[in-house]
């Protein structure tokens, strides 16, 4: 774990922007050029270079990249490493090479790049494979590597009849790469469908969307050298999925080809980089987003919907919502209970049909008429929810086809319009039809589509919200949901309906900055949230709502560097705020208990910023060390979670005897100052006083402080936290 954590975050946030890759945009660089040693007809070595990098490729039965040199520093990677690819039609005998001793080299000049194409074949008649590897270098350090394999076993070529050939393939350069000291080497590798791990899934996993979607680059990096190389496989018929790093390094692929068949085996981008896996992640993020259509995310309703974070799954047969004595939906009492237990709901998903549907021929659309007051009664209930700023979603069941209707989409749109629904939940689906979107648009463009299943990339262009129902993936810390980081516009909600213990699920929501679904009545089976989870959700809800300006940033960063091996920190920065949810794995795994105290992270914010731990209500000290701002926990964090908010200084709070004088340096329009205390048993904030946004004076007696004697002075504007000062007025002195 110690070594793993060092592997995860190395560079300070400010350096994450890839200076190394920056050269590929904007500035006019000398074009890439190629040199053949001694000449193109008798090639022994090929030099492909541009202003930033120099690749040396040698051809000797295989193709080797013998060096990749950063021109700025002279540092050379890849020297002393095995060839790029090894392809054999015989079983491997100590990796013996059946020899591709015949080769030709061709060159192609593009507008801004140059390509070298090396075609190899074998002198052995038994080896009919012809391998073509091409290397393209543009203006940056990225080398495009393309591999084609042809089974040239046609009649006459070999002394046998043309035959289907199965070749065994490895990629030694990638799989057996030596990069500095082996103990400091780490691998970002795909594992099992849409998951990725660092070295091993047991230690840490990321998750993305769908098996069919593009995969993150494979990245091999060294934490001591602070350098690595990623292999971004754009396209390949081979399946890159490994159990762990040992499985990766020893993996063998196979390819079967009919006579005359040519296969595009690999379309890959090789890129040396500074730092760790973040370089590969950022390159991938840019690549994925550049091909994505954000049209539906640009709708005004999506911005409003994106702020809907805590919701309730409402099975309408339950007496928490339906009152049988009066035959009405007790919506006000229900929402009151929601506020009391969970901090309130941003929206509720109504559920009126399954599993009752099927006893007679009333389908999902007919059954609305049976609710109290029918559609009109439901419209009134929705209006009452809207008056309390609670949105209402209705479900759509694609499987409800017993009546053979051909107009499902129009029916659903009709219902949505009749009741004033804010969104449609796509039951059992992870994608939808354009026809459905159009049918809804005909009624209102302010109805969003949310899917139960995580959509693949193509579907995610139209389905703008989804559940995160990935079982172990979601209900485990410190798992990072990469999809959420790559597409912060998409509204993700954590849910695990059958879970008996949800604290990691709730921490996961705070850590990844995603929403949460409260669901206790699972179609008639009750799975109540115990009191301690309700407290966690209320605390999470306050933090994510009051800091949604930062949490909903367009540039969230997963796992930023920090000073501890056992602390995992995500960053959600905007111009004048950053939120850092942090998870202390060491507290759980550290044997006698690692203590989270003292310096924990370096940040690059301006000097006059305040830092507070919103979860543990602790003021964070910022110390200037070696020109950097280091954040310090003054007191040991008595929890596995913390959540640091960084904000520009605005509040000035001074204690004068039994008075607190509160001032703001810069008044904010419509702002107010909330003075809260903390309940010692639940750590929940209790609202004590509210002052004008410009400041005021507080009599400490009026706060009726008791343990932990904390006063939270919060500058709030439109429900958003703009600054916070935490005063500890008890006997503790840090």
């Amino acid at each position, binding site marked *: 774990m110690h070594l793993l954590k060092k592997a995860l975050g190395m560079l300070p946030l400010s350096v994450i922007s890839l200076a190394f890759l920056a050269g590929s945009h904007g500035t006019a660089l000398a074009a890439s050029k190629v040199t053949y040693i001694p000449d193109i007809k008798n090639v022994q070595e090929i030099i492909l270079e541009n202003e930033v990098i120099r690749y040396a490729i040698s051809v000797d039965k295989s193709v080797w990249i013998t060096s990749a040199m950063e021109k700025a520093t002279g540092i050379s990677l890849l020297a002393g490493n095995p060839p790029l690819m090894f392809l054999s039609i015989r079983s491997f005998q100590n990796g013996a090479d059946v020899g591709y001793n015949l080769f030709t080299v061709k060159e192609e000049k593009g507008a801004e790049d140059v390509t070298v194409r090396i075609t190899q074949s074998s002198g052995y008649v038994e080896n009919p494979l012809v391998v073509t590897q091409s290397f393209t270098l543009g203006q940056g350090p990225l080398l495009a590597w393309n591999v084609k394999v042809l089974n040239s076993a046609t009649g006459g070529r070999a002394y046998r009849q043309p035959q289907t050939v199965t070749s065994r393939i490895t990629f030694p350069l990638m799989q057996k790469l030596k990069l500095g000291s082996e103990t400091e080497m780490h691998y970002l590798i795909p594992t099992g469908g849409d998951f990725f791990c660092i070295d091993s899934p047991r230690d840490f996993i990321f998750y993305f969307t769908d098996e069919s979607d593009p995969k993150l680059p494979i990245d091999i990096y060294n934490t001591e050298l602070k350098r690595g190389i990623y292999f971004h496989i754009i396209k390949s018929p081979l399946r890159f999925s490994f159990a762990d790093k040992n499985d990766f390094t020893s993996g063998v692929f196979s390819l079967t080809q009919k006579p005359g068949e040519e296969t595009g085996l690999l379309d890959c981008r090789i890129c040396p980089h500074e730092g760790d896996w973040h370089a590969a992640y950022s390159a991938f993020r840019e690549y994925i987003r550049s091909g994505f259509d954000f049209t539906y995310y640009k709708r005004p309703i999506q911005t409003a919907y994106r702020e809907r974070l805590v919701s309730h799954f409402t099975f309408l047969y339950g007496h*928490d919502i339906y009152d049988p004595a009066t035959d009405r939906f007790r919506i006000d009492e229900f929402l009151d209970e929601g506020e009391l237990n969970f901090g309130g709901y941003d929206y509720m998903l109504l559920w009126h049909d399954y599993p*009752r549907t099927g006893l007679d*021929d009333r389908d999902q659309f007919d059954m609305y008429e*049976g609710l109290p007051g029918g559609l009109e009664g439901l419209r009134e209930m929705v209006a009452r929810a809207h008056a309390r700023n609670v949105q209402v979603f209705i479900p759509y069941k694609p*499987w409800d086809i017993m009546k053979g209707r051909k107009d499902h989409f129009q029916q659903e749109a009709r219902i949505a319009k009749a009741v004033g629904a804010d969104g449609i939940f796509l039951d059992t689906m992870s994608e939808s039809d354009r026809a459905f979107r159009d049918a809804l648009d005909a009624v209102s463009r302010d109805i969003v589509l949310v899917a139960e299943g995580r959509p693949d990339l193509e579907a995610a262009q139209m389905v703008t919200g989804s559940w995160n129902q990935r079982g172990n993936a979601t209900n485990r810390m410190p798992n990072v949901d990469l999809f959420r980081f790559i597409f912060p516009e998409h509204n993700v909600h954590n849910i695990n309906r*059958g879970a008996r213990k949800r604290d990691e699920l709730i921490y996961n929501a705070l850590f990844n900055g995603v929403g949460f679904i409260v669901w206790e009545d699972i179609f*008639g089976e*009750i799975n109540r949230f115990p009191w301690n989870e309700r407290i966690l959700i209320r605390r999470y809800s306050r933090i994510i709502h009051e800091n949604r300006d930062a949490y909903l940033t367009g540039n969230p960063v997963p796992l930023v560097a920090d000073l501890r091996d056992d602390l995992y920190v995500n960053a959600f920065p905007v111009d004048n705020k950053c939120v850092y949810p942090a998870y202390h794995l060491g507290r759980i795994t550290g044997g006698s208990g690692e203590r989270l105290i003292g310096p924990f992270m370096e940040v690059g914010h301006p000097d006059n910023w305040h830092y507070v731990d919103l979860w543990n209500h602790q003021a964070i000290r910022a110390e200037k060390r070696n020109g950097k701002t280091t954040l310090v926990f003054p007191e040991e964090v008595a929890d596995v979670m913390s959540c640091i908010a960084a904000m520009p200084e605005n509040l000035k709070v001074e204690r004068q005897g039994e008075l607190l004088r509160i001032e703001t340096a810069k008044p904010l329009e419509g702002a107010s100052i909330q003075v809260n205390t903390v309940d010692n048993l639940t750590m929940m904030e209790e609202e004590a006083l509210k002052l004008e946004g410009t400041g005021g004076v507080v009599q400490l007696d009026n706060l009726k402080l008791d343990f932990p004697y904390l006063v939270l002075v919060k500058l709030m504007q439109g429900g958003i936290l703009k600054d916070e000062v935490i005063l500890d007025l008890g006997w503790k002195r840090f």
Partner: protein
Amino acid sequence: MNNNRRIVSFMALSFSFFMAAFVCAQDNPDMVLVPAGKYAMHVEYRVREGLSLDSMVVDDRGRRYSMTEAEYVSAFFIDRTEVTNEQFKTFLEASGYKPERPENFLRHWQGGTYPKGKGRHPVVWVSLEDAKAYAEWAGKRLPEEIEWQKAAQDTDSRAWPWGNLFDPDKANMDSRGTMPVGSYPEGASPCGCLDMAGNVWEWTDSFQSDGYHYFSWLRGGSYFLAKGSRWYMQGGPISTYQRTKFWHMTPALNRCATIGFRCVKDAD
């Protein structure tokens, strides 16, 4: 006392028993007797989601979610058939019953009566409360689950009222609508009840609350089978031992085109 007199007394006694039973039966025409006895009711039902996996086909022992209840069931009479539209009309005219919440009440009737020719069809669009009102008027009551199942299954654990072999021609289990009661005489249960499988679901006296929801158990299955998805409440052929959960909510939803009932009466 000589032998002749003993014979005569014996014959008089047995004749009076016979006459009593006959008279009882005459007092309860269209009802059949289910004798008293110990009965082990084995039920199976489908559990939905939540904490347990949906055991819609089988559980890990190869059976649906199930339980067995053994009880001594006193003798009772049970309606041979489901209560018909005709009978229900008689009840309405005699009692003047009007439900407090009339949403969807007798939705298939027009102008205060049942559709032409449907007099002998089972009455539908009646809630559990409507059924209870009828039963009370008739001096009867709704069957408990164990009574219903005993009348359908007898004591040999048969899967269907007529035996263990499924036969689609013995009940109205997958069609476009109800049939006149008693249309499938070959589908009779051992004690003589008709349409215990199919035609309409039947209410039982099992209304209860789990603290969060009101529900009761339906028995028997109806003519209706929702097709196209495993997520539907299972319709179509329903065995004697299958119970189906009905969530009670609004009056409009509590009444269905596929739910009717029959009554029972204690036999003392």
